[in-house]
């Protein structure tokens, strides 16, 4: 079996006096979209932030394509080809859409073909290209946040709850865009609370509880097993279908 692109082994993270991640073991296979599910407070966001180096792991190893991330600073982790879309989207409200994208492209010029591709997925970004990002709606900001992570080819993209607070129609547009992104064989680790979105996009799934991974498997298997969903996620059949 091929070595996963990202492997977390026994990762612990403390924030102040709180012990949030309590020995996370997680493998993210290359070219797949792995869903990280779990209730509020399970440690999903902390897991993504620990991978990005925004919070430091107090123990354990985080191997990305053979490189140990634990000792690296966040900019160095990003430059390994890891994109990050935080829960609050992290768009720069005072900067225009164009400036947000220019920053994401770093020292390179924005690739025309790639930008056209992004515009085809998120037409609003073309329309509001010269506007401050602060003027965008919540859904458009989320599109910008994801577009920023897509503007350069990345080996891995971490996305934290992209559907949070968005209308169903916007969520559908995001699902379509993520399907397009998946076709480029980009590896994605996505935290999501919306099981409909998780079901539509996930290849693999990992479920967190109290700072640990309590289940890993294929998303299709979890989607087909309502009993397992109820046990792991507290979902009832009517709640997500």
């Amino acid at each position, binding site marked *: 079996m091929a070595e996963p692109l990202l492997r977390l082994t026994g990762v612990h993270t403390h924030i102040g006096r709180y012990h949030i991640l309590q020995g996370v073991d997680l493998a993210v296979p290359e070219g797949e979209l792995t869903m990280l599910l779990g209730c509020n407070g399970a440690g999903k966001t902390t897991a993504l932030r620990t991978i*990005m180096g*925004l919070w430091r792991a107090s123990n354990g190893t985080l191997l990305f394509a053979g490189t140990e991330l634990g000792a690296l*600073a*966040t*900019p160095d982790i*990003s*430059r390994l080809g890891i994109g*990050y879309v*935080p829960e609050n989207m*992290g768009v*720069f*409200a*005072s*900067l225009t859409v*164009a*400036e947000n*994208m*220019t*920053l*994401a*492209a*770093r020292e390179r*010029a*924005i*690739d*025309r073909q790639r*930008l056209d591709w992004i*515009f085809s997925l998120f037409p609003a970004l*073309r*329309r*509001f*290209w*010269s*506007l*401050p990002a*602060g003027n965008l709606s919540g859904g458009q900001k989320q599109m910008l946040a994801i577009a*920023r992570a897509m503007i350069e080819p990345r080996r891995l993209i971490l996305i934290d709850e992209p559907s949070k607070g968005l209308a169903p129609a916007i969520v559908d547009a995001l699902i379509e865009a993520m399907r397009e992104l998946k076709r480029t064989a980009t590896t994605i680790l996505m935290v999501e609370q919306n099981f409909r979105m998780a079901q539509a996009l996930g290849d693999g799934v990992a479920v967190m509880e109290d700072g640990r991974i309590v289940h890993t498997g294929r998303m299709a298997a979890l989607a087909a097993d309502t009993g397992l969903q109820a046990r792991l996620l507290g979902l009832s059949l009517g709640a997500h279908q």
Partner: protein
Amino acid sequence: MSSQTAEPAAIPRPPLKERLREQMPYWIVVALALAGLALIADFSTWATLTLAGLAMGMLIFIMASGLTLVFGLMDVMNFGHGAFISIGAFVGGSVLLGLGGWAVSSSAALNLAAVLLAIAAAMATTGALGWFFERVIVKPVYGAHLKQILVTMGGLIVAEELIRLIWGPNQIPLPRPQVLKGSLLIGEIVIERYRLLAVALGLAIFAGLRWTLVRTKLGLLIRAAVENGEMVEALGYRVRRLFVQVFIAGSALAGLGGVMWGMYDEIITAQMGLNILVLVFIVVIIGGLGSVDGCFIGALLVGLMANYTGFLAPKVALGSNILLMVAILLWRPRGLLPPGKGR
């Protein structure tokens, strides 16, 4: 491809109320000037005081602009900024006094060369000291405000004592070069030459800072990092390295402000940095921590207020800027133009 190739948006105009709210801080400067005119009731006196206020405001802006960016970028409260003002004044003053022949020469070119050399020496010294100060004093206390206040205040006190050790305990007179002495008289309006230079220099620095912030990649990074430094790091940029550059530039600007203020007052003292720091902090707070535009407007307001009240009611002049700050914070608790709106 370049990022300009995408089609521009048809930008919708914000509602009138929103636009007025946005522009209000700029109009306050005009309103203060008009209020001054109404109260002073003599145009030539008002014009002279207004120019003096603008010159004072510009000098404060030069000293405050670096401090506001340092706070906005890394959330650092740097009371040591006053040390760079004093050191800049003493280093620049020493150069100017050392080139005494040039400064009193009848040649305007030699006069200006002396001023430029004094400014260059002040900025180079305070820039280098800024780098040292950031590495040794500020870096160990990132994220701890109380410690920042204590250690940077300590740094300021040590710097003051070092100045007394090197230059002696007494204040040093710093006469202006010949070309900057005297006044122009337009009608009954008295315009000091030196104040004109201060206004021109302040405007040039404001324009340069605005250009850097709006037109360059470095400025783009600074604006983004002031808003969300963590996200800038997650995009692959080293915010701390950026911060050190801004800290050095801010320290150099403080040095420039110090030598200019020294020539403005025509006297330099070891504690001048601490004295001016009060006004600098008022300006930074009024403007909105981290905002260069806000800092500029705040500096103009403070300069005008100090000069108008100094003329109209000298007894309240000392506290007038505190009252101004209180009034503005009651109206806008985050300052006139807090960052995050493109400033």
